[in-house]
């Protein structure tokens, strides 16, 4: 049975192909259109999935869409009705959009499939719709390594649901409890993202990264006025302080009054206040997530927990849930955001609609390390790079690994484009920029000269799986960079008295460990464990770097500049390489150094993309 899953038209559009229960291919549309968070119909991603698997459009049994537009319209109407006449401005903006497009989503999807994938297929007859949070839950449970598990999904909002608890057992998956709009942990976090001057739906990572620089001074204010958290982790928001039900923004004047100032203007200087706000909302979010996880464990008696939904990308909170040990095992869907809904919708259609049995993977999970996107054969890479004007050497595997490991040791930033592209927001050694974590200057250099992004933002380490507990306070698989743990005590560098007195961003310049480029100011790190069976070439590179330096860790950040989607093709990689201060590029077996390139092809990439 062949099922195409689609998520589109709201946030991150994506497509995924499931063949006989196996996830064969998945990709986000933004990687092809080069427009970050592209929400448009994912025609490119669908074509890739079908071509990669060699499946023709006629062979598809079903096309599964990741949410239900009528249910969403019901929410829209009932929300406006409940708040009338206050939401008139918002209503006036939203209604034409719905009456022109969104209400007729089935016809729209059929039309897009006809033009983007091909006509002469009964698309209407093949189309299925899955509920938003069921798609998230399916994306978290079915690919997990568990026969049975409790499944917790949390995000901004789906149709009505913002938080759900589901029970998964074999092929069955049933949603048992839900928290509905407008009470949403995701929207609360997004409100603070907005208030601290970042872009909603992409700046949430920045708030999380900023939190360790601050003190949770406002946490009690948030608990007193904004959110009522019950012992079981369920919650209600006080809507007097939010504007999203009736207006076009997230917060309102009362929110500003509560925190004593208007929102920070985007791109203005970050102050200690924003850091304290970030620390406060992070603390409250962690409290809710921990309470929810504990109550779910008590209630279900399950030993395994699966997480998905945008809030599950909060890897700091995930690490706390793991260490809390309410569950023995925790598995996180790497594409936890809306893009992952494409995978979930397809799997839900296969197991729930198609009633097909589920086979739990014998080793690891069914996400194939997250490497589900396009890959390019060596001859194709060479012809594409030649056409782009690149000057390169073709090295055999050993020589390539040697050259890259040596470049890393020499403090160079490496563009690493190998094998299949990752599905989900994290680069996991398929489309990554790599660096030496031992270098105290690496974080600033990568942030300011390579990625053109804010200097406070931390980088993540990739570490050989067998060495993870040697360097970090973690002895679990974390292949998707969704868990945060502390650097081991013996690798930390204690601060002197003067350094301990520093506040906020000033702490950034104090090396905290032997791997300062990946150690956050609170000694934490967002860890990716690298496994030989899922990414052998990346594993070999780190192994060689360890042989040269004694350090089994490299800095791994996504291969893009600020505002750019992660690179997809060899041409994208070459352009990003030529437009930033990346020193060396390895695409397949092609090795490129910056000095060898034609200077006329150098560009200023910094201003090409709209800032996120």
């Amino acid at each position, binding site marked *: 049975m062949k099922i195409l899953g689609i998520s589109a038209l*709201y*946030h991150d559009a994506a497509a995924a192909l499931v063949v006989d229960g196996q996830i064969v291919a998945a990709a986000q549309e933004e990687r092809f259109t080069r427009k970050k968070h592209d*929400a448009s119909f994912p025609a490119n991603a669908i074509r890739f999935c079908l071509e990669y698997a060699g499946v023709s459009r006629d062979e598809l049994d079903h096309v599964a869409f990741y949410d239900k537009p*009528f*249910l*969403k319209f*019901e*929410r*829209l*109407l*009932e929300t406006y*009705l409940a708040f009338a006449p206050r939401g008139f401005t*918002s209503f*006036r*903006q*939203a*209604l*034409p*959009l*719905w*009456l*022109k*497009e*969104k*209400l*007729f989503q*089935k*016809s729209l999807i059929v039309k897009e499939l006809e033009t983007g994938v091909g006509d002469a297929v009964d698309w*209407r007859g093949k189309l299925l719709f899955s509920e938003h949070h069921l798609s998230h839950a399916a994306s978290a449970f079915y690919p997990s390594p568990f026969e049975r598990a409790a499944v917790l999904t949390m995000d*901004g*909002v789906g149709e009505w649901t913002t938080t759900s608890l589901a029970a998964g057992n074999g092929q069955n998956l049933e949603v048992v409890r839900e928290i509905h*709009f407008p009470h949403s942990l995701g*929207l609360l976090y*997004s409100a603070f993202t*907005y208030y601290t001057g970042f872009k*909603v*739906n992409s700046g949430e990572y920045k708030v999380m990264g900023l939190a360790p620089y601050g003190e949770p001074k406002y946490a009690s204010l948030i608990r007193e006025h904004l959110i009522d958290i019950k012992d079981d982790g369920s919650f209600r928001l006080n809507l007097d302080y939010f504007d*999203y039900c009736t207006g*076009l*923004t*997230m917060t309102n004047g009362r929110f500003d009054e509560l925190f004593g100032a208007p929102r920070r203007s985007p791109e203005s200087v970050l102050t200690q206040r924003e850091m304290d706000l970030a620390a406060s909302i992070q603390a409250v979010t962690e409290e809710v997530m921990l309470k929810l996880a504990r109550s779910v464990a008590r209630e279900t008696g399950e030993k395994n927990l699966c997480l998905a939904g945008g809030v599950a990308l909060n890897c700091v909170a995930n690490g706390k849930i793991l260490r809390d040990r309410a569950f023995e095992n925790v598995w996180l869907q790497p594409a936890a955001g809306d893009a992952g809904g494409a995978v979930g919708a397809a799997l839900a259609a296969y197991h729930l609609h198609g009633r097909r049995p589920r086979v739990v993977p014998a080793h690891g999970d069914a996400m194939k390390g997250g490497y589900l996107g396009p890959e390019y054969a060596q001859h194709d890479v060479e012809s594409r790079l030649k056409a782009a004007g690149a000057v390169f050497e073709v090295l055999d595997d050993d020589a390539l690994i040697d050259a890259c490991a040596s470049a890393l040791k020499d403090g160079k930033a490496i563009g690493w484009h190998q094998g299949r592209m990752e599905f989900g927001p994290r680069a996991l050694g398929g489309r990554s920029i790599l660096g030496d974590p031992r270098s105290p200057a690496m974080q600033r250099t990568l942030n300011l000269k390579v990625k053109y992004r804010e200097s406070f933002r931390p980088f993540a380490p990739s570490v050989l799986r067998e060495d993870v507990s040697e360097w970090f306070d973690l002895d679990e698989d974390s292949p998707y960079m969704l868990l945060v743990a502390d650097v081991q005590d013996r690798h930390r560098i204690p601060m002197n008295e003067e350094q301990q007195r520093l506040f906020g961003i000033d702490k950034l310049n104090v090396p905290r460990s032997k791997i300062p480029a990946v150690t956050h100011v609170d000694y934490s790190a967002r860890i990716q464990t690298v496994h030989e069976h899922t990414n052998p070439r990346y594993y070999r590179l780190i192994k060689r770097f360890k042989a040269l330096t004694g350090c089994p860790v490299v800095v791994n950040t996504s291969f893009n500049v600020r505002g750019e989607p992660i690179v997809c093709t060899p041409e994208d990689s070459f352009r990003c390489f030529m437009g930033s201060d990346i020193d060396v590029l390895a695409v397949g077996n092609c090795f490129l150094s910056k000095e060898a390139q034609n200077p006329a092809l150098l560009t200023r990439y910094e201003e090409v993309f709209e800032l996120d």
Partner: protein
Amino acid sequence: MDFIKELYAFLKARKKFWLLPIIIVMVLFGGLLILAQGSAIAPFIYTLF
């Protein structure tokens, strides 16, 4: 026609026929808004809908 049938089935399944008069009024009102403004691009901070 398919749309009407699907909407009917939805309202029946959800037991929300009370929404029907509101939907009709909104369709009429929304039609006027579309005629009046022409563009359907909504500058929402967060795409809730």
